[in-house]
């Protein structure tokens, strides 16, 4: 017999999402919204964390299937902890990105998730790598991802500057995420930022009612 389930019940939980990473003078900021959705209509979580720490100063931003993303980042975290024991040193950001790429490329028929890997290491300082769906690895000074990123390519292309201060980069990130959340109905909730520098890691949460307001808001 044919049972009719709503679209949301058969497609699984997705971070249909906006994620972002940008370098500034002395570090890197990563950011995301906090909405998890099923199908395109049901908000299954308002406060999901999409910025996964895989080592002390290395994070992954996740977009796409939440189950896939959690499985991949968990494996990456394990491999990196093993790698850092072998090397007797914190891993390079590029090593983390390469592990992500290897996992995504080897399993690309099964996976429906894309990642941004960002962090700081002593060899090259702040770095950002994109591992797209399918497993391509690319280094970028800033990058965006997820369904909401479509709406803010124009904004970030126009506003990005190299060597921003921490304050400028924080404002850039908050504005970009707020603009995406304003147009994409599977992005929303709060802005979650992580600032990664040589000195360490700092989390910032901007609640929905404190987000900057733009046209029509």
């Amino acid at each position: 017999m044919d049972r009719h389930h709503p679209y949301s019940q058969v497609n699984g939980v997705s971070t249909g999402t906006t994620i972002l990473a940008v370098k500034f003078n002395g570090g890197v900021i990563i950011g995301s919204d906090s909405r998890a959705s099923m199908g395109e209509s049901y908000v299954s979580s308002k406060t999901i964390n999409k910025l996964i720490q895989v080592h002390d100063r290395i994070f992954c931003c996740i977009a796409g299937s939440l189950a896939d993303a959690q499985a991949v980042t968990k494996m990456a975290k394990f491999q990196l902890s093993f790698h850092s024991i072998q090397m007797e040193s914190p891993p390079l950001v590029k090593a983390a990105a390469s592990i992500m790429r290897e996992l995504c490329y080897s399993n690309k028929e099964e996976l429906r998730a894309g990642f941004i890997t960002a962090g700081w290491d002593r060899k090259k300082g702040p770095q950002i790598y994109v591992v797209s769906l399918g497993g391509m690895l690319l280094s970028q000074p800033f990058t965006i991802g997820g369904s909401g990123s479509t709406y803010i390519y124009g904004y970030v292309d126009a506003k990005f500057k190299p060597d921003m201060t921490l304050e400028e980069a924080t404002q850039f990130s908050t504005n970009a995420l707020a603009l995406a959340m304003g147009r994409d109905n599977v992005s929303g909730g709060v802005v979650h930022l992580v600032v990664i520098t040589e000195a360490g890691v700092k989390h910032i949460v901007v609640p929905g009612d404190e987000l900057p307001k733009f046209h029509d808001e």
Partner: protein
Amino acid sequence: MSEELFPEPGWLSEEVKTGTTIIAVTFDGGVVIGSDSRVSAGESVVNRVMNKLSPLHDKIYCALSGSAADAQTIAEIVNYQLDVHSIEVEDDPLVCSAATLVKNISYKYKEELSAHLIVAGWDKKGGGQVYATLSGLLTKQPFAIGGSGSFYINGFVDAEYKKNMTKRECQEFVVNALTLAMGRDGSSGGVAYVVTIDKDGTEEKCVLGNELPKFFDE
């Protein structure tokens, strides 16, 4: 099979679309309306320099997106209807009248037509005005964007739009928005066409590809 090595080019079998970026924005005293110039069929560029801004009357223009054939036909029909209308009322038509005529056709034939037109212009009753006519919905807005490239500039226009811009600021805003969209959308490109309309008349301008402003990665 050799057919797979050399698939036929898209323009032989795909519908021709102005898959496209269009924008119209009000400023203090008038409107600026703009478009890119790429016409595509599948992944082929059919025309590199098509002007997608069509006059509906002396001070009323529309920007075309969607099926090139449908959009052009709607513009031609409304242009004719407005000419008759302005003779009947012995005056220049209102921008709202032009938008209503476009809306009527879009709604009545919405199963057949696949086009979205933005209508913008100046009239003595309401000054500069912008109307969007998505599938027969008529909505007046301070600015409107449309076409496949418009998705990439939603954030930019929401952040950068200001009421009561000067004419020059508005022209710059329009060119920047088009450039950012053309940089990301494969179906938008070429040159930027810009028409500025105020009570003194209309001013047409074409900004060549090598004269467009440069942003990240350009």
